[in-house]
């Protein structure tokens, strides 16, 4: 696969118009994740309503891969059960670690399947996972916070 092919239209679309970008209230957890090797940074907030991901808002800077992947992640988790989001995150992560040898389920990953090509470029896998790791971390914090409040 050529590099030009790696940059699918879907990826460039998301990069140029990031879905859900910007910081919003309310939120239960806020995390900052960075990729120290390149300086990509994301500040991400999660708002949960019961078992549902009500909103994910973020302020991020970085390459097309990290930005597009965060935008796709927003579409895939907001308005859906936490558990489903976590399963999607697992499927996306598995695809990214596959080196491209993977049959992605479009019903699960939707626009995320465009990143299959990125999995063939090991240096960029971390970029594609930045937003997802931030989201998983924020959800864990929000859930822990919820438990504390119940205690």
């Amino acid at each position, binding site marked *: 696969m050529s*590099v030009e092919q*790696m940059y699918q239209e879907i990826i460039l679309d998301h990069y140029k118009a990031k879905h859900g970008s910007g910081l919003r209230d309310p939120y239960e957890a806020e995390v900052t994740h960075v990729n120290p090797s*390149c*300086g990509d940074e994301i500040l991400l907030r999660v708002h949960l309503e019961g078992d549902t991901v009500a909103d994910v808002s973020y302020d991020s800077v970085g390459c097309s*891969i990290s930005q597009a992947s965060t935008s796709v992640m927003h579409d895939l988790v907001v308005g859906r059960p936490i558990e489903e989001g976590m399963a999607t995150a697992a499927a996306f992560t598995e695809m990214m670690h596959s080196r491209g040898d993977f049959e992605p389920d479009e019903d699960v990953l939707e626009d995320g399947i465009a990143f299959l090509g990125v999995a063939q470029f090991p240096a*960029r896998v971390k970029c594609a996972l930045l937003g997802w790791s931030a989201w998983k971390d924020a959800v864990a914090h929000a859930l822990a916070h919820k438990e504390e409040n119940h205690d």
Partner: protein
Amino acid sequence: MPDPDLLAADRSGAPEASSAGFALPASVRGDFPVLDRQVNGHPLVYLDSANTSQKPRAVVEAMADHLLLHNANVARAMHQLGAEASEAFEGGRSKVAGLLGARPEEVVFTKNASEALNLAAHTLGQHLALGPGDEVVVSVMEHHSNIVPWQLLCQRTGATLRWFDITDDGRLDLQAAREQDLVNERTKVVSLTWVSNVLGTVNPITELAAMAHAVGAVFVVDGSQAVPQLPVDVATLGADLLAFTSHKMLGPTGLGVLWGRYELLEQLPPFLGGGEMIEVVRMEGSTYARPPARFEAGTPPIAEVVALGAAVDYLRGVGMQRIAHHEHLITAYLLEQLQRIEGLRILGPTVPVDRGGAVSFTLTSADGFDIHPHDVMQLLDSRGVAIRGGHHCARPLHHRLGIQASSRASAYLYTTPDEVDALVAALEHTRAFFGGHSLGGRR
């Protein structure tokens, strides 16, 4: 897949470079086998020498020869091989000293330039009994390795870290520094880079040394980007300590150098404890060897020092004046050609005056999108062009410039104008690729 026709078309479309004045690369490129490689179906265009330089055959052969035929530990093995190894190792030290115009015993070997600067920060902090009220001065254009060791020192001692700002054209803002009385009677250490690894700026080291010495401060210089490309004479430079690294000057990784004025080195306490750095060890306490051994605990990187010696021989064989001259010419050409690209903004001086061979830039597509350096790098790599993208271990500088990251092309003695042309063509392609994409066209 690479398209040879496309490459040929790009090359023919690139401006013709005058070959006059660019004689050096042709005479040295044959010594660097890697430069004949194909990468992703294209001839390698290696423009990342500020990151690490390529190695000539003579350096690799010197290292292999040492390991295969003369290997023994140094300074303690009392047999023939031990004597050969010690002689080769100390020979490397003498060669480095020769390059700097220094005495061999002023050359301390470390793991890398970062360790050399950490050594400087630790030992100076103790020697000067740094404490609250004392100040250490660096600059906003420093590499992290000339910021963090001083931050740590200030945290340990309660001293205050202050820094030079830069002007809009990427030079140290000496006027603002004077107005703020940045370097004053409280200043105990001034540590600055000679050549910026991002902006390429060559700082006026002698003038800065005078500024530091006028208030009695110790002047430390990070020479990582300077020593590979400029003639050095420590007798007139004005530095008290000078740190640099082997791998950016044709030598192997795993080896750095701290040069110090002997009178200063003699007063500094040890840094790391262990073998070779001692005089007499008793359980109640030890006495320490004289410099440079005092700062070289444990078995040193012997083969690496031998190889660095070979790298110095190579550089001096070519001539540091000639290397500096080529660096100047190729940087001028690089600056001139890059400025022809629309949407490309050069960070740092845009004219080849007091400027080293690293040129950093940002790139914006025709539809006004900042093309991230990682994306630039990836597109360039697919055409065999190797540059660096990111914050180049100088995050505060990028923050100061109001950007998150940049792309950097850097040249060395083997860099040709054709390679600059290939870079320009690949950048034009990158710009067209990211700009040609119509927003939301898919939806």
